[in-house]
């Protein structure tokens, strides 16, 4: 929109990746005079807000400077040799595919820091918390900004340690096993992924994603592609998570602190699907062609499985944890994303990228809301919350109830909100998959996926009914539950409103996102030729 010189753009992107790291180191040092605030804890939490805020500002500046007429072109690129021995280059750049995810990450990180500033995490010193949050942010942003396979792997791994500690130190019940499950599961996946990446790099002689994407798999034999896609696919599928490999997710989400859950669902899962779009689709199309039907089958299995698990959790007497429920719903939503990718059509992949961003916004909001609910009630257990008559949030805290209902409705894919377009486009893509894929099979997948949307609607409406509706007990002395609970506080409103606004915006004006992603996707699928 505004012409910003290329060198400034380069600096902005490099700053977005490195800035949080510097901030993390600074967070460990004592605060300089003048920035001490009311105490060391407050000072360091404020430091977190400042740094993430600066990164968000840089990301917005990047959007403004981004040449929206050429979203398929890599922009703000930096390409420096780092380790000549391994042919690893510090190659950064953004295009229409990575830009939305970059901004989403910066936004969610900032909101998380802001939320923690007003509501410090319960656990050991916030100093380490802020430092870990910033390292996490750096790793997430780097994943979307790097264009080198080995660097991508490095960024992919960088988020593990901070997330482990966030869950293990600031988490809720059973946090240790959950944190272990998270890190061992994803590490096993990413080691397998590394083998696939190395296979590609060694066979084709370069680790550069742009060069490999332009090559479109021409330099790789079909068998290499099949093995590489299998290996990389397993690593990414664990992260996404794809249905049979998802079992770390519910535990990690249930145990993680609110901020951890928001980033886990909002960004970390996207790293898996982004990898599919950025690496697997353009670099090894033949291998992807082989596995696409299986991927789609697992994806729809995930959609149905996730929804059924949520239905079971939402049932009365099932003692379902709300955070766990949303985690399972993520499995379902990411199923749509994977289905879209598996179609290998521009429609499907655009839908997948759209659903990615939408899921980040909506599920981020849902986790914030459930976190707030848990703070107020001391539990996220649906049965304890709702009792027999319902939690009656509309009556006791109308704004909170309204927001929860809004997020639930957005999550089930109501037209006009962000959740709708991605799922619809993914199903559209499955209706007419890429030539060479088995169309009848994909039609079946589409039908099952469509059925999954129904199930999704069912459990989310049950949740809304049990949590938001019901008669508020006038003077409920017997159950001991507070009759009135504090409604949405100002800082909560400030943190959540950007997510609400963007959900509505993306729902009403999907061209904002699709205009960015479509040209880039067209180019990726066409093998580097736009």
């Amino acid at each position, binding site marked *: 929109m505004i012409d910003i010189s290329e060198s400034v753009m380069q600096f902005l992107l490099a700053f977005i990746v490195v800035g949080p790291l510097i901030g993390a180191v600074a967070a460990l040092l004592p605060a300089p005079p003048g920035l001490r605030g009311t105490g060391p804890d407050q000072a360091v939490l404020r430091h977190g807000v400042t740094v993430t805020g600066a990164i968000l500002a840089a990301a917005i500046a990047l959007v403004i400077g981004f040449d929206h007429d050429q979203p398929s072109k890599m922009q703000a690129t930096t390409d420096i040799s*780092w*380790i*000549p*021995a*391994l042919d*690893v280059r510090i190659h950064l750049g953004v295009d229409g595919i990575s830009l939305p995810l970059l901004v989403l990450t910066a936004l969610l990180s900032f909101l998380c820091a802001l939320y923690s500033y007003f509501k410090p995490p319960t656990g*050991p010193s916030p100093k*380490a918390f802020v430092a870990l949050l910033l*390292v996490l942010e750096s*790793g997430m942003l780097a994943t979307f900004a790097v264009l080198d396979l*080995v660097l991508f*792997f*490095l960024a992919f*791994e*960088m988020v*593990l*340690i901070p997330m*482990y*500690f966030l869950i*293990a*130190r600031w988490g809720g019940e059973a946090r*240790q*096993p959950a944190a*272990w499950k998270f*890190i*061992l599961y994803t*590490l*096993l996946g990413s*080691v*397998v992924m*590394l*083998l696939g990446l*190395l*296979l590609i*790099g*060694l066979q084709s002689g370069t680790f550069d994603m742009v060069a490999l994407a332009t090559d479109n798999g021409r330099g790789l034999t079909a068998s290499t592609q099949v*093995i590489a896609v299998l290996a990389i696919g397993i690593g990414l599928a664990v992260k996404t998570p794809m249905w049979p490999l998802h079992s770390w997710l519910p535990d990690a989400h249930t145990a993680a602190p609110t901020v951890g859950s928001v980033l886990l669902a909002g960004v970390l899962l996207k790293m898996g699907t982004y990898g599919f779009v950025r690496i697997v689709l353009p670099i090894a199309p033949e291998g992807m062609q082989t596995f696409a039907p299986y991927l789609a089958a697992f994806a729809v299995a995930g959609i149905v499985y996730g929804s059924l698990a949520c239905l079971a959790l939402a049932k009365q007497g099932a003692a379902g944890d709300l955070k766990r429920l949303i985690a399972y719903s993520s499995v379902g939503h990411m199923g749509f994303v994977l289905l879209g990718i598996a179609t290998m059509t521009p429609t499907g992949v655009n839908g997948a990228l759209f659903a990615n961003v939408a899921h980040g916004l909506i599920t981020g909001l849902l986790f914030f809301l459930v976190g707030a609910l848990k703070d107020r009630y001391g539990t996220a257990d649906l049965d304890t919350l709702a009792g027999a008559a319902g939690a009656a949030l509309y009556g006791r805290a109308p704004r909170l109830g309204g927001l929860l209902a809004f997020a639930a409705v957005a999550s089930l894919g109501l037209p006009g909100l962000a959740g709708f377009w991605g799922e619809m486009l993914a199903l559209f893509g499955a209706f007419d998959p890429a030539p060479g894929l088995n169309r009848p099979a994909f039609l079946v997948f589409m039908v099952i996926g469509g059925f999954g949307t129904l199930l999704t609607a069912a459990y989310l409406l049950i949740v809304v009914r049990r949590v938001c509706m019901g008669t508020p007990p006038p003077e409920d002395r017997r159950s001991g539950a507070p009759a009135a609970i504090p409604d949405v506080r100002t800082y909560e409103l400030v943190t959540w409103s950007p997510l609400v606004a963007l959900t509505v915006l993306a729902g009403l004006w999907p061209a904002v996102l699709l205009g960015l992603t479509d040209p880039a996707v067209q180019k990726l699928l066409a093998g580097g030729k736009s």
Partner: protein
Amino acid sequence: MITAIRSAAETMNGAAAQEAATDGALSPAVAPGAVSLADASGGAGLVQSVDWLAIAPPTITAVVGLILLVADLFVPEKRKGLLGYGAVAGLTVAIISLVPLLGEDRTTFCLTTDTTACSYTADAFALSIQLLVLGGALLTALLSLHRTRDELPAGEYWFLLLSSTAGAALLPASRDLATLIVALEVASLPAFALVGMRRGDRLSSESALKFFLSSVTATAVTLLGVSFVYATTGSLHLTRIAANLGDVSGQLETLARTGVALTLIGFAFKTAAVPFHFWVPDTYVGAPLPIAAFLSVIGKAVGFSGLVLVTVIAFPGYADVWGPAIAVLAALTMTAGNAAALRQSASRDWSAVRLLAWSSVAQAGYILVPIAAAAYAGADQIGSTVAYALMYAVVNLGAFAVVTVVSRTSPRNRLSDYRGLWYTRPLTALTLGFFLLCLAGLPPGIIGLFAKVTVFSSAVDAGLGWLAVVMGVNVVIALYYYLKWTAILFQAPGTADAGAESAGAESGGVAVSGAGTLVRTPVAVTTAIALTAAVGVLLSGYPQLVLRFAATSLF
């Protein structure tokens, strides 16, 4: 006995010259060597000039060791500390003496008849391993300065340490089997004495005996193998063996194969590869801590560099024999090491050292992977081994340095003693966390990650997919115990958390009071930690420094 071996090493020149004579006598045309000084005396070039600069690194180390042994007799009891500084200075000089050798391959002790067959070669491989050995010895010396003041006898200690280092530095440069075996023994024999040095400690003498007996058996087997190889090829020079092994007559084929296999065993033992690894944990626990650190790095360097020399240079024609064998050995070694490390309970005495001991067995497995890959994809893969070993040396010595610090306040050295280290010594805790994550190969230990990536890539390059997958699973297993230890560092000292529940009520109080009272850390140990941490961070920012070995041919 040790002195005898020492003198054997010193008279090695003689042995090489003798062999030159026999080889010369065998060949019909005795060409006067280009470097011969003895032409004037009328002999067929029995005396030759020695490239003193090339052999300076091991020689300086050996000479300084001898000087310290003699000086010990004259230095008064109060001034014994000076000996330690002498050793540090000597090792520093030896490291500096590597600098002029950079860039070109220098050879010496060549056959006068065939100047391509040399006993000593200072090429890129030799220099990088010498840097590893001498640097490791320097760090070991820094770690042991304070111990020689009170518990360990200074003169003997420094002499033995430097002798062993000299042998280890000679080994990567030696290019004939006799020198190789002599170097191996010069490196090993002082090590037995060093392990048993804690006077009046039963554990110490027991572990020394265990180490000695198993090592001597392995050496005997190697010698048998060497004699078989010599019998079939008629030469001890590695390059000539390689040439002659190709046309061994059919009858001797089996003998040659047996010889190759037996020769490898001794070096596999030194690397502590499975099934020759049982001595490791007991020996590490019984030895003084700096010696455990020394064995974990220099002992392994001796083993794998010997293995590299015999496999890649002497037996390339038999790659189909040793390639699969080393691949299987590597897989077994990493799996066994990790499985045992996983089982260390946090509250057992010496569990920290035991964990490092077993993890070093596992790391030896990773180091072996590129050697196995070299059987399939050529000698260039060895660079990955060197790069990985350099990373491992820095990081593992750093971890041992921190263990030394903690063992001063809690002599039982359990993993649970590390609880809350972050609250008493934040910087030490951070560096140990960094070292452990480097060993695990996860960011922020970027150099550890990339070293593993090169090893993986050598396996993938050689088509050893199954080995890469086994290694991948092992990396995940190893992460579990490394990260568990890291997590213990940052746990609040008081609260009982699930991570270290086994710290238990019985010992918890002791650990807290142990960590609570700060004992001053000796300056030398602090220097060692700072040095390793600085190198680790530098390498993480600029991995090319060690990874460049992975991309070039070293021989």
